[in-house]
């Protein structure tokens, strides 16, 4: 059997249903075999979109996503998508063609050192030089991508290896002596944590993307209710705790809620699970949770005591550790006074925005309206910037795997292709991309993809004719010197129509409801170009490098 066929057979063994990608010279043998397989192939119009689509598929389904590109420029175009997946621990398998083994290192046509380039943005990568290693490499790649702390794995496959013959021998099991993730928390540490929880007066849970990855949301809910402790979720953790639950405090950090940041600042015990204390969460590190003892549960030992010094580290899988903790905590702490205090903060400083003036559209209102009309059940992908923060603040996520956003890398152009991947993986669900007028243009060519396959993604552009988040910083910290942030945009309705996609422009608040309704009843993809208040800001906001209780716009 030829290498290309072995690769296809291996992907079938891994139950791959769909591949996102783009053909080219160094993957011709592979694409020839793809022609005859039951695996669905989605041709994106740029390799970066293929990687993001595989990522959106993976985040929304929990299964590894697969993308394919040719050597050289095809592979380098994947890298932004790979880096995005790496920062947010998303399992994707990137397969890249490579020039003939005899030409590697010769500056051959479309050659790039792809394993070298992707070394620091993959969990692991492989250059397969012998077809006999191919099947076991694919097996290892899927295992590594999906186990422990998940992440992208790249397989670089020279074109001649795709043509070499060998017998298919797909391994059943895998043993890697050097890779043994710790799945169960150390019993001694669990005991210490349980003791600290029992003694706490002002505990707070900080839940991150790790909860979603290990499917621990229902255990988290049980745990929080048992110890009657409020829950904050990071951007990556949105949806891992019900957004409408009375114990829920929203998101912390730079654009978090006042009450989440106050809870962290005043707490005496911080129970962090599956979150890595990103600088956007902590603000000024020495003022972060200053009075709290910190329990940190994470499957990745490198996350522990990296940014924040931790008192009780527990290396393990969120689900296993939560179930151990549930067992170990016998007496829940008495938190009623603490909850009452936080309830006051919630009442006093709710998430809010100034209502519309002269019928202009408030971007937050668009998000609220999408939330209302989808009953909070849609999968929401976002781009990066103000659109992302408003989606995070005003859409209440009740389930995990419904909010897809580039948290770590902050990749503009992520949302639309990620929404495509999510829609392909969840054909029965409504999938939105909440976008900005800047970021949508970073992968707008994918309108051709949604038109070709009739992928009914709904794109809501919060069009403020600015790179809004950068403009906001310029307004607040650079004396309103709007350097390179004003956007002279194309006519998005015409652009959509040019791609044979339905386009709508909405410029008045009173038309928002109707437009979203129309988009939801339309069978195919839709572009909604909402012309929103141009200089609206995302508040509250913690200025960079400030303590998280020093928020502007939100405590007034």
């Amino acid at each position: 059997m030829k290498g290309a066929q072995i690769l296809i057979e291996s992907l079938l063994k891994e139950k791959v249903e769909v591949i996102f990608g783009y053909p080219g010279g160094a993957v011709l043998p592979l694409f020839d075999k793809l022609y005859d397989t039951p695996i669905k192939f989605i041709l994106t119009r740029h390799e970066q979109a293929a990687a993001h689509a595989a990522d959106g598929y993976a985040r929304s389904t929990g299964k590894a996503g697969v993308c394919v590109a040719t050597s050289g420029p095809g592979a380098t175009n994947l890298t932004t998508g790979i880096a995005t997946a790496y920062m947010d621990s998303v399992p994707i398998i990137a397969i890249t063609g490579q020039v003939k083994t005899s030409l590697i290192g010769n500056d051959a046509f479309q050659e790039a050192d792809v394993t070298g380039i992707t070394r620091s943005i993959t969990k692991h990568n492989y250059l397969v030089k012998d077809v006999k290693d191919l099947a076991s490499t694919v097996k290892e790649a899927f295992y590594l991508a999906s186990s422990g702390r998940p992440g992208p794995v790249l397989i670089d496959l020279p074109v001649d290896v795709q043509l070499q013959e060998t017998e298919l021998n797909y391994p059943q099991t895998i043993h890697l002596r050097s890779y043994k993730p710790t799945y169960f928390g150390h019993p001694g540490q669990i005991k210490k944590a349980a003791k600290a929880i029992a003694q706490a007066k002002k505990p707070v849970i900080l839940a991150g993307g790790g909860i979603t990855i290990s499917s621990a949301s229902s255990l988290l809910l049980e745990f929080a209710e048992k110890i009657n402790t409020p829950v904050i979720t990071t951007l990556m953790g949105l949806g891992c705790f019900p957004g409408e639950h009375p114990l829920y405090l929203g998101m912390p950090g730079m654009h978090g809620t006042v009450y989440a940041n106050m809870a962290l600042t005043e707490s005496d015990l911080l129970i962090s699970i599956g979150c890595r204390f990103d600088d956007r969460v902590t603000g000024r590190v020495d003022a972060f949770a200053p009075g709290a003892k910190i329990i940190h549960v994470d499957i990745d030992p490198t996350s522990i005591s990296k940014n924040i010094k931790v008192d009780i580290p527990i290396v393990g899988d969120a689900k296993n550790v939560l179930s151990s903790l549930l067992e170990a905590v016998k007496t829940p702490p008495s938190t009623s006074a603490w909850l009452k205090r936080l309830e006051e903060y919630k009442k006093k400083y709710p998430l809010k925005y100034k209502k519309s003036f002269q019928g202009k559209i408030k971007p937050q209102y668009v998000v609220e309206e999408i939330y209302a009309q989808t009953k909070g059940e849609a999968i929401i992908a976002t781009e990066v910037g103000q659109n992302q923060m408003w989606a995070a603040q005003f859409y209440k996520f009740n389930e995990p795997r419904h909010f897809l956003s580039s948290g770590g890398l902050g990749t503009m152009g992520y949302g639309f292709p990620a929404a495509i991947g999510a829609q392909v993986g969840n054909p029965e669900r409504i999938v939105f991309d909440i976008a900005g007028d800047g970021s949508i243009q970073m992968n707008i060519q994918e309108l051709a993809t949604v038109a070709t396959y009739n992928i009914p993604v709904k794109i809501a552009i919060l069009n403020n004719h600015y790179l809004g988040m950068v403009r906001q910083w310029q307004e607040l910290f650079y004396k309103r010197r709007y350097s390179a942030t004003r956007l002279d945009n194309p006519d998005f309705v015409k652009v959509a129509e040019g791609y044979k996609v339905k386009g709508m422009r909405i410029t008045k608040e009173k038309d928002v409801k109707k437009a979203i309704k129309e988009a939801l009843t339309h069978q195919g993809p839709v572009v909604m170009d909402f012309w929103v208040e141009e200089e609206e800001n995302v508040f509250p906001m913690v200025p960079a490098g400030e303590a998280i209780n020093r928020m502007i716009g939100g405590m007034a």
Partner: protein
Amino acid sequence: MKHTIQALVENKFGVLARIASLFSARGYNIDSLAVAETQDPTVSCITMVVNAEDERVLEQIKKQLNKLIDVIKVVDLTKKEYIDRELLLIKINNTSLTPEKIRELKKDLELEVLEENKDYLIIEFLGDHNQVRHLLSSLKDTEVRELVRTGKIAITK
């Protein structure tokens, strides 16, 4: 502070590059490096000496080393008891190193003259970190043409 770090790794291509990039990405230089197969030909041992300005960063690098899929085990020897050796080959202008000086050096250092002609001498020296330092300072006044070192290897007691 200088740290001696030892890693047992899969004997495969690319592993050294992965390790080296953890240091270079943080702007850390590797002072010395020795790599070779162990008694098990599928395992290589890498011994590195690095100068860590910030112990926290080094702690993070050690964790990251452990996280690399091809790394089997990482040990920081710095606070352990160990024996270390380094091999030096030195080419010195013959006129600047008299037989008396060699005899004097040989008194407390294990060195051997491998080659001698009217132009230069080639000296071999095997010793631990401190002896190497001692030798190098003793040779300060000689005219060294070339000096090559293996990088430190070490074994715990």
